[in-house]
Structure formats: structure tokens, C-alpha cells
């Protein structure tokens, strides 16, 4: 190889090929995926997030939760995601079109969160549970190495004041002690609203039938 121009064209073509072949083609295929209207209850799925939950998703981004948590449920027969109650089914591409920023993650130092707010799977996971998990992870998840996010809370002295209605209940040795209360900040409120919004409970007929067909004969049903 001596010709600089040929080298440049080759270098250009290499990346152009992968951009067109991978990104553009994928965009062509699923870039316009839309909500699905359930014929029975006439509702569009996936349902959009509430405003508070959208704010919470920004807190999720700024704290880098994705460093340890995935948001993708692997289907039956590939890992034990369903056995761990991380979902009722594998995730579909359509599940994600409600998210402005899609963070499916690449590390499971912590559990998958795609269905963290799904009370059918985790009946205990109410708002209080998430507040305690964020304030003192060990208090609800023994053995965890999740860092405490105490900076999302304010600790107030109770002396001579009306207790806050938002104060969370922290079990004895994890709390700040008697005479103090732990109150979530707005950031904690929105983050918990986001975590509670995480559930893919609706099963889309198109995807379900396609996946069922794909699992029978061989891989590659698309």
C-alpha cells in the first residue's frame, strides 16, 4: 500500500459500511416502533412515565446507577433472570420506546431493575422500601455492597418541631438516633417515583407470538 488516497478511501469505507450496515439498517427496522393499542382496554402500551418519574430518571442518570444495574430481562432459557423474579417475560424492544434515555446497562454488580416497581413480582417494594434502600441499603438488603445515598436525604432535629409527614422510618441502628428524623429530598422523591414506575407487565401479542415461534425451530425469528 503506497497510495494515500486509496488508504483514506478504504478507511472511510470501513466505517461508513459499519454505520450503514449496523446503525442505519437497525434504525430503518425499529426506529419507528410505536405504542400498541390493546384491543380490550383500549389503552396504549407502553404507558408514558409520569413527570415526576421522568425527573427521577434524570437523577438515575446523574448518580450513575447504570454502573451496577442493568435494565434488560433476558428471556427464558438464557440466564436465570425470570427465576430471580427480575421480570415476568424477557424484555422487548417496544418496552423501551417510552424512555427518553435508554440505559440497558452492562454490569450486574447489583440486580436488574427493569421491573423494580412491579409489585406482582416484589410485593414488598413500596415507596418506603426504596427510601430505606437508598438511605441505608443494609437495612433492607442484608449483605449488599450498594453505597448509602444519604445525601439524598435531610436529617432534622425533632426538638420542638412538628415532625415531617414525609419522614421515613429507618430501623434502629441504621437511623440517626432518637430525636432526629430522616426526610427525603425532592431528588429522592423523584428517583423513587422512577423506580416504582419500572415495570413491563403488559405482554404484547405480536412480540409474544413471534418469540414463541422463534424459540421452537431455531434462533433468528426476525
Amino acid at each position, binding site marked *: 500500500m503506497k497510495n494515500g488516497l486509496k488508504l483514506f478511501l478504504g478507511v472511510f469505507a470501513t466505517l461508513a459500511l459499519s454505520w450503514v450496515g449496523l*446503525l442505519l439498517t437497525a434504525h430503518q427496522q425499529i426506529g419507528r416502533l410505536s405504542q400498541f393499542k390493546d384491543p380490550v382496554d383500549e389503552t396504549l402500551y407502553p404507558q408514558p412515565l409520569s413527570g415526576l418519574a421522568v425527573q427521577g430518571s434524570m437523577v438515575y442518570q*446523574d448518580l450513575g446507577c447504570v454502573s451496577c444495574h*442493568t435494565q434488560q430481562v433476558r428471556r427464558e432459557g438464557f440466564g*436465570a433472570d425470570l427465576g430471580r423474579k427480575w421480570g415476568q417475560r424477557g424484555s422487548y424492544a417496544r418496552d423501551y420506546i417510552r424512555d427518553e434515555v*435508554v440505559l440497558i446497562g452492562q454490569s450486574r454488580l447489583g440486580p436488574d431493575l427493569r421491573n423494580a416497581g412491579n409489585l406482582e413480582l416484589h410485593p414488598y417494594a413500596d415507596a418506603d422500601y426504596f427510601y430505606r434502600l437508598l438511605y441505608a441499603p443494609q437495612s433492607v438488603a*442484608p*449483605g449488599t*455492597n450498594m453505597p448509602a445515598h444519604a445525601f439524598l436525604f435531610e436529617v432534622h432535629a425533632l426538638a420542638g418541631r412538628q415532625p415531617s409527614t414525609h419522614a421515613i422510618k429507618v430501623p434502629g441502628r441504621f437511623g440517626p438516633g432518637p430525636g432526629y428524623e430522616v426526610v427525603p429530598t425532592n431528588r429522592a422523591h423523584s428517583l423513587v417515583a422512577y423506580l416504582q414506575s419500572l415495570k413491563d407487565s403488559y405482554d404484547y401479542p405480536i412480540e409474544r407470538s413471534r418469540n414463541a415461534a422463534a424459540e421452537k425451530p431455531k434462533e433468528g425469528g426476525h
Partner: protein
Amino acid sequence: MNSPDQPVRTEQMEIDASAKWPGLALFGSALFWLLLGGTLQLVAAIQLHTPAFLADCAWFTYGRIAPAAQNALVYGWGINAALGFGLWLMARLSATTLRHGGWLLVAINFWNMGVTLGVLGILGGYSTSFELLEMPRFVPLILLVSYAMMGVWAVTTFSIRNTENVFASQWYLFGAAFWFPWLYAIAQLMLLKAPVRGVLQPVVNAWFVHGLYGLWFVPVALAAVYYFLPKILGKPIANYYLAPLAFWWLVIGTALAGGSRLIGAPVPVWIPALGTVANFLLVVPVVIIGLNIFGTLSGRYSALAGSVTLRFILLSALAFIFASVLNLAFSFRDFVEIAQFTLLSELRDWVVLYACFSAAMFGAAYFILPRLTAGAWRFPALVKMHLGATLVGGALLTVALGVGGWQQGHLLNTSGVAFGEITQAMTFWFTLRTAGFAVLLFGHLAFVINFVGLLCPLGACGKKAPADLGQGSSAEGHA
């Protein structure tokens, strides 16, 4: 190799002199980020087994400090070091001086300012959370403009070359110089400026991450390997006629392999399938490059004793093979089912960034820096310490991430084991991982002290021959 005639040597000294200040600025800032990134990485590693460590401050929570460390290492250390080495080598191989280095210094300043803002932005809570694109939204423009001002030197230096032949290292450098800004600009555009919808975002992100490792760090490392092996051994690359084939095959395959990071993800199955096929096809160029490297080395392993550059380069070459094997393993469904999302997937990227790329840059630095400063390494003991720390730290990390990741994957796939128990079982491997990073950081410290010693020539030590003994200036020629 050319005969060691005097004009060649004079010309090389002129080139070295022209690259002195840009080269020192790039390596100097690279080393700053290497220390800072390594320190942040160590803090994050400690937090995995001691979660209370620095947890009270939002700036140092694991989710911010871990990506901040990775960004400091990739954009601070990685790009600076690659350019410091790449621009020098491009000038040497093109037999022309680096012109107008003053402008280059301006661009280097802006680049480092951008990285500083980016890392602070991540720690301060402006992270975008996209892997390796976490820097806040206003930073990429600074980075792209300043990169353009630096990368253009590689291209212009190449285009005014005074040589007939274009050597393998030049293809890799030339390609990398273009691929990085394209990958980066496209990823920024498709993820942050005009975001694509739904799972296309992870597809773009995977494409970018795979491209950054495979089309920037690997090519720069290979450029170093292809250059220093024949240079130091004084013999041509074995089976060199196969090298162009390997180059094109490797880069086209790598460019298409990004989807292999998404096996089992909620994306159309052809995306991971294409990546997997590309990874299988990559076996051929890796074998050819292996033949090039180890064919050249065969029978000459005794030369390793005399050259610290050669030892780092050999480490880099071995890591390249290892990284390719890991990449291939990550194309097998059964392997991925266990290894995905564990420390093993961290190992795959760490081997490329550290064992392959960084080792090559260390080897290059030990060769280049004394020539830029016309000085000598003052503390040979620190050189040995650095090499030793790299080997020991690298081995510790490989075991911690490899064995630990495998165990983690098995536990994750056993739904009877509670998540807290997995974390407890992993504590030993997390601790070993911390030890690995600590040893590596110790090595970096030794290197930096030596670098400072090189810059401040005090006393009479400056007269000594370069620590890279065994190949005097007479063995130099255009490869």
C-alpha cells in the same frame, strides 16, 4: 533496515527535536491522567468491598467515580498517550518533521481542559450515563474541535511524507486518526444531539464502545508493535506480505462486530448475530498478525533482556491475542450466558485498554522520551519496578476479573442464591481486584517519578546511555 549512515541519524534527531514539546506535553498530560484516573479507579474498587468508603459525598458515590475514572483513563491517558506516540511515529516513518508544533500545544491545552471539565462534570452530577460518553453535553464539542486540531497533524505529516513506502504502522495510525472522531461525532449526534429512539440507543452505544476499543486503542497498540519489533530486533517483520490483508480484514471485521455486545439484549437478533459472525471471521487476521509478531520474535527472545521497550511490546502483543480470544469467547452463546454482565466483561475491555494499549504506550515512552529530551532515564530501578508492577498487577487483575467473573456469572444464573450472598461471595475477588489496581498505580508512580527525573536533568546522571540498552542509536533506521 537501513545502514546506520550519518545523514539518517541527523534527520532523526531533527524529527525528534521538532516533536519535543508536543510530545512532552502529550505524554506529560497523559501521565497526569493516568495517575488521577488510577486513583479514582482505586477508590471505586475499594467501594465495592467497603461500601461506606467516601459514600457520604455525592461527588464520590460509586456510580459517579467509576465512570469518571474510566473517562479519565480513556480520554485523558488514552488519547493523549496515543497522540504523543502516534505523532512522533508518523513523523519518523514519513521522514519529515512535525511542523508548527506551537499550534499543537494550543490544541493539547484545549483537549485537556475538555477532559477536566468532563471528569468534573461526571463527578458533579452532569453525567449522561452512556458508557464512555458520560461527559456532560457541552464537553464533546470542545473535545472534537481540539482533537481535530491534533489529529490533523497525523494526516498532514503523512501527506507530506518523504518516503516511497508506507509501513504497516502508518496504516494503523492513519486509520485510527480518522476513526476516533467519526465514531465520537456520530455517537454524540445519535445519542445526545438528535437521539434515536428506544433500544437503538444501546445499539449506537455498543457500536461506539466497540469501535473505540477496536478501532482506536488496538490499532495504535499494533502500530507500536509493528514498529518497535523490527526496529529493536534489527530484522524485518516476518511474512510482512500478509500484513495488508490482516489490516483490512481486522478493521472491517471490528467495525462490524459492535453488535456482539448485545447478545440476549432486547434488540433485533440479527444485530448480535452479525457481530458474532464478524468476531468469528476476525480469527484470520489475528492469526496473521500473530504470525507477523511471533515469527519476527522467534529465535530472538534473548533480545528481551536488553530492552524494556521490547518487553512491554511483547506484553502488548500477548494481550492483543488474549483480547481477541476473549472477544471470540464472548461470541459463544453458552459463554455469554454466564460471563455477560460480570467482571469478565470488564476484563475484556480492560485487557484492550490496559494490557494491550497501555503496555504498548509504556514501551513506546521508554524509547521515545529519552530521544525527545536527549537525556536518559535517571532511575533504572524504577523502570524495573514499573515493569514488575505492570506484570504483577496485570496478573492479579486477570485472575480477579476472570475467575471472579466466572463465579459471579454462575451464581447469578442460580436463582436459588440470594443477591446479597453473591455480593458476599464476591468480596474476595473485589479485594483482589483492588490489590491489582493498587499495584498498577504503584507502577505508574514509579514511571512518573522517572519521567520527572528525565525532564529535570540535575547532576551528572544525564550522561548515561538510555535505559533502553541493547540498541544504540546506530541500530535506528526507517523501519
